[in-house]
């Protein structure tokens, strides 16, 4: 659900960062030159980050993907795009702040950006409902996509949710229908669609923004048919223990590398050493460059060819014997 607490396996990194800060503080106060002492520490820090992030287990990646320190959709809107104006509401029931969207510019050209939005503090987390949308969120997203299509503007989505909200109101107002409608309409939208999983891509609630010409995942993002906890609870009657979560996370093959191998995604966007949260700007730059290049590629296709290729791409998905 997003937490600012330090992750267990990141503690050595945080410790070392503290040491360096302490040294700097001392040096600042007493006009001492401590560069010689700091330099090896910083080298060690870089190595430590590299080492830890290279060897993340799938379950650790889930924790990184959910971290509230990572950049969210609105952060990317600030760092990657210009001239953003947010649009609200599904025109039927209400505004759902778990999905944000609106017009923005990528390298000066207008695009429609739509993404799940999580919160960092309690107030924001509640406002955003943990980034878990109700049907009206998905209907707002579809409204914005149709608007983009009307004005021949590409759609860029950011996926960052544990899943669609499970609750009374969500069911009453047709969570299933809302998600299904998005899959249906996105498969025939006559403008380019690029989807990027920036954190956790949870099940149908993620896919409802995910029928795209190009699908990217950030290096430490995950994308799954069910939450790791849910899978462990159903199969092994234990969604709580570390051991079963590790087992489920590994079994489900949810890392960016896994999805690339399964040919579900097209590209992995690299994160800086220590993960996206270690440096929002570097991460945003990589996202920017990937999106800008992909939009250029996709602009070459006429609408009917674009749609045909998107459909064919999804028709190829899956593995079976014949």
């Amino acid at each position, binding site marked *: 659900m997003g937490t600012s607490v330090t992750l267990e396996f990141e503690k050595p990194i945080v410790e070392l960062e503290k040491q360096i800060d302490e040294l700097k503080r001392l040096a600042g106060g007493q006009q001492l030159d401590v560069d010689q002492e700091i330099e090896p520490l910083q080298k060690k820090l870089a190595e430590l980050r590299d080492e830890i992030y290279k060897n993340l287990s799938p379950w650790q990646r889930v924790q990184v993907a959910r971290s509230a320190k990572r950049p969210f959709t609105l952060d990317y809107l600030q760092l990657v795009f210009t001239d953003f104006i947010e649009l609200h509401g599904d025109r039927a029931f209400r505004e759902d702040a778990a999905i944000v969207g609106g017009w923005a510019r990528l390298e000066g050209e207008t695009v429609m950006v739509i993404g799940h939005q999580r919160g960092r503090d309690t107030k924001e987390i509640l406002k955003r409902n943990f980034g878990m949308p109700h049907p009206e969120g998905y209907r707002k997203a579809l409204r914005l996509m149709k608007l983009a299509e009307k004005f021949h503007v590409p759609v860029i989505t950011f996926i960052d949710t544990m899943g669609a909200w499970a609750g009374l109101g969500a069911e009453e107002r047709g969570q*299933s*229908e809302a998600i299904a409608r998005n*899959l249906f309409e996105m498969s025939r939208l006559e403008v380019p669609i690029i989807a990027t999983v920036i954190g956790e891509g949870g099940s149908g609630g993620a896919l409802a923004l995910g029928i795209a010409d190009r699908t990217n995942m950030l290096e430490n993002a995950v994308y799954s048919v069910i939450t790791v906890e849910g899978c462990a609870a159903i199969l092994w009657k234990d969604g709580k223990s570390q051991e079963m979560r590790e087992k489920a996370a590994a079994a489900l093959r949810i890392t960016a590398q896994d999805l690339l191998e399964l040919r579900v995604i097209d590209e992995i966007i690299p994160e800086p050493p220590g993960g996206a949260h270690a440096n929002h700007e570097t991460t945003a730059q990589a996202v920017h460059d990937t999106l800008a290049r992909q939009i250029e590629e996709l602009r070459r296709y006429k609408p009917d060819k674009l749609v045909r290729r998107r459909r064919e791409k999804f028709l190829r998905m899956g593995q079976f014997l014949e």
Partner: protein
Amino acid sequence: MAWWKKSEKKARQPRRERLEIPADVWEKCEACGHTDIREKFERNLNVCPNCDYHRRIRAADYCNLMLDDGSMEELEVELRSTDPLGFPDYPARLKKAITNAGDTDALLACTGMLDSLPVNIGVMDFAFMGGSMGSVVGEKIARLGVRSLERKYPLIVVSASGGARMQEGVLSLMQMGKVSAVLAQLAERRIPYISILTNPTTGGVSASYAMLGDAIIAEPGAVIGFAGPRVIKQTLGQDLPEGFQTSEFLLDHGMLDSVVHRRNLKRTVSQLLRHMSGRPAATGWAAS
């Protein structure tokens, strides 16, 4: 003269002897406890004669129910699930499911005549791993859809599923996109698609093709929803209202066109298809 004559009393057979029916032909309704001979349940399409509780039936039963006698032909019989992720125990579970439920996976794909109309029909089978949707289910429906596009036959899908098949991970999730993309093509070509929901229809199945029908009809009392009742109970921390997520609840909330008794499924679908494909009304159905 007395206008009736008292006849000699015949020795009657003892009642107990007359009703001597072997114990194993009796069945009890899971919902109301009504006890009746099995044949009566079966003649009533496995619907309780007393309370109308719709029992779960197999995919082949639905095909027999929907298609005209002798017209049914099974399609895509060669498709088999594989283990793309190397998921723990999946090959063993598949093997067990094939032994118990047959080798059609969780969907039986057929073509045939429905009330003299050619149709393609896919029926999910809950007996095969809870009707879970993996690559084979998705591929079979997609191919049925493509076949419908080529021949301009209406498509019917009967759903019974707990959702996507976990053991095929994100590939199962992508089947939702795959099938929805084919259904969008059917819609563009104005080929009717009818979705029939049976108990249960939840998760990734309800959040894709189940809710995309030109008409969506459900059997009475089916559990239909995105999240299962257990999950919602967990998020809420309280019990769910009576009748929540049943067919009747969805009808009330505008999510279904109609709740239809099993015995009326075929005629309802026939009527809908005839309206949507510009054909004359069927003859032979009694007006009701």
